[in-house]
């Protein structure tokens, strides 16, 4: 006989095993779609892998794609740790992109411009995240819905800008004027798109890990998330922790937008983010909300995205497979989390 019983703790190897299990299940499930499209499963995944991680240029492209998702993944991970349900990383990213684009268009020395772009983008993202946090703390408004709805508000705000005052008067296209050339993030490897913002993302992950794991703020974030009553009893001002978490989370999501403006697009357009804010939720869940885990999780999703385009060209399987993989991975990861709550135990046949 087998019985499900509640688990009180989970072994550390679960943090690695569960995401791998979820990704494995995802790739198996999605192979059905590849077969449906009439292509070889091994071939399709093979092309996907070699085009995203097979050579050094491919790896740089994947890293460029991973950078915004590292930032949004960190943003979501930090927020979810405190049980501040920030579904609004997308809107915070857009605000960060707009703010950094505005700053980057002002002529000034390059390093200063980049620094100010980052500060403005982070501040804009933080300001947006402050809205649902304040509403929750002051008015007990549900943060899931308010942060989600703000994504639409900031999407339309961005559209109003690029179809209004920022519209390219020469071409008539809804794209903002480019930032100054001097404000373009330097490319670190000749012949690639690997820019300074990618390194910033890779550095941000251990920094945020340190903040969450080793600082007083991190301790407060974790306690507030795990047991707000105990936190309050222990003298922690839970409301202030939620606000601080929101500021940190929003700033990180804003930086995702900064990197896209400074390092990839050099301007703002309607599709500056193909849903990186929502992908951040997938990344954070795959990482089990661990900031260090965010990096491999973001690289996995980025590899799927870059690899899918090459796979589509080679095998004819629609590149939208990457979107399906993303959604399936999130659901599979959620299902895998059941192993943290329950264990299957063999019990003797008892009457």
């Amino acid at each position, binding site marked *: 006989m087998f019985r499900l019983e509640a688990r009180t703790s989970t072994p550390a190897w679960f943090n690695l095993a569960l995401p791998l299990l979820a990704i494995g299940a995802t790739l198996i499930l999605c192979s059905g*779609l590849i077969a*449906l*499209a009439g292509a070889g499963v091994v071939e399709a995944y093979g092309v996907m892998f070699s085009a995203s991680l097979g050579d050094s240029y491919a790896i740089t492209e994947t890293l460029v794609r991973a950078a915004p998702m590292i930032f949004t993944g960190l943003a979501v991970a930090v927020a979810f740790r405190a049980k501040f*349900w920030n*579904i609004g990383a997308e809107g915070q990213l857009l605000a960060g992109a707009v703010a950094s684009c505005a700053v980057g268009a002002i002529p000034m020395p390059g390093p200063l411009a980049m620094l100010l772009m980052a500060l403005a983008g982070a501040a804009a993202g933080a300001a947006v995240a402050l*809205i649902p946090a304040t*509403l929750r703390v002051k*008015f*007990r*408004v*549900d943060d*899931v*819905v*308010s942060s*989600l*709805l*703000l*994504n*639409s*508000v900031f*999407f*339309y*705000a961005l*559209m*109003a800008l690029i*179809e*209004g005052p920022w519209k390219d008067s020469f071409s008539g296209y809804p794209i903002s004027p480019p930032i100054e050339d001097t404000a373009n993030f330097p490319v670190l490897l000749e012949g690639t798109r690997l820019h300074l913002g990618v390194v910033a993302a890779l550095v941000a992950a251990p920094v945020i890990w340190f903040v969450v794991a080793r600082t007083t703020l991190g301790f407060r974030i974790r306690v507030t998330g795990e047991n707000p009553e105990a936190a309050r009893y222990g003298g922690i001002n839970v409301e202030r922790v939620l606000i601080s978490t929101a500021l940190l989370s929003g700033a990180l999501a804003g930086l995702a937008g900064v990197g896209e403006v400074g390092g990839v697009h050099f301007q703002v357009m309607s599709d500056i983010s193909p*849903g990186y804010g*929502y992908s951040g*939720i*997938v990344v954070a*869940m795959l990482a089990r909300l661990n900031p260090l885990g965010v990096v491999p999780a973001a690289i996995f999703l980025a590899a799927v995205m870059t690899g899918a385009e090459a796979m589509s060209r080679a095998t004819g399987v*629609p590149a*939208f*497979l*990457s*979107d*399906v*993989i*993303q*959604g*399936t991975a*999130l*659901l599979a990861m*959620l*299902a895998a*989390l*059941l192993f943290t709550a329950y264990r299957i135990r063999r019990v003797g046949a008892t009457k």
Partner: protein
Amino acid sequence: MSVVLEQIFQVGFLAAIIRIATPLAFATLGEMFSERAGVLNLGIEGIMLLSAMTGFTAASLSGSLWLGVLAAVLTGALMGAVHALFTVALGLSQHVCGIGVTLFSSGLAYFLYRLIFGQQSVPPNIKGFETLPIPILSDIPVLGPAVFNQFSLVYMAMLAIPLAAFVLYRTPWGLAVRMVGENPRAADSAGVSVIATRFQAVILGGALMGLAGAFLSMAQFNAFTFGVVSGRGWVAIALVVFGRWDPWRSAGAALLFAFVDALQLRMQASGLGHIPYEAFLMLPFIFTIVAMAVMSRNAVAPSALLKPFRREER
């Protein structure tokens, strides 16, 4: 101002409001049933998109629009069941599951559409629903041609609103839905199966979201494009809150939003717009967020919303 008033009382304008409101009414009622049972369904955006795709495909391949509607409804119900499986049966966090369902459904919609129809410069279209004038009623001046010369799916939406109110407030099942959304523990003690009721409500909700998708691809646009839903699911999430989880108020909210949307379309078309049209599109979201802050004092949201039910936890 008089220009605006003249616009409002034009038949075409009134008819446009009704048409814009129809998919929102279906989606809003669907989300409302789900939330009244205690399950937030953020999968709505993706469910509408996937249903719009399957409905369009079924109609296009079979030549029967009603077969398309059936396919869309079944798709919505199926995805509702998936969401319920994760959130109700397994008790996983509703918001993250919902985002997962949206990402999965929209990805699948794009993938299957591209697989079936390939990449074409002009998206394939179908001959969608035609308006069906209701005898006598459609002869009423102004109101008649605007309200009673519509697609059959529009009439279905008009009937769905009182029907939803009746089911929710006047039937034993509706009572069960409200109980499991307000106080699942008490419902369980009273012999109501919390799990089964929530499953049913989320599946019914999904089916209604499917109807919304069907309307978009088979009556409004007569084609499936990647932007066919473009945030209408999120609008429905807002309208449910704005309509205080009540069928009548939610439908009224849908109508109000449709009015604002139709107005901005007219202003854009007539070149009257000094205000960017995006400002209008933002309004429902901003109003809802403000309304949430104002309403929070007299908690009207279903108490058990977002809370999974596990029998053994006491």
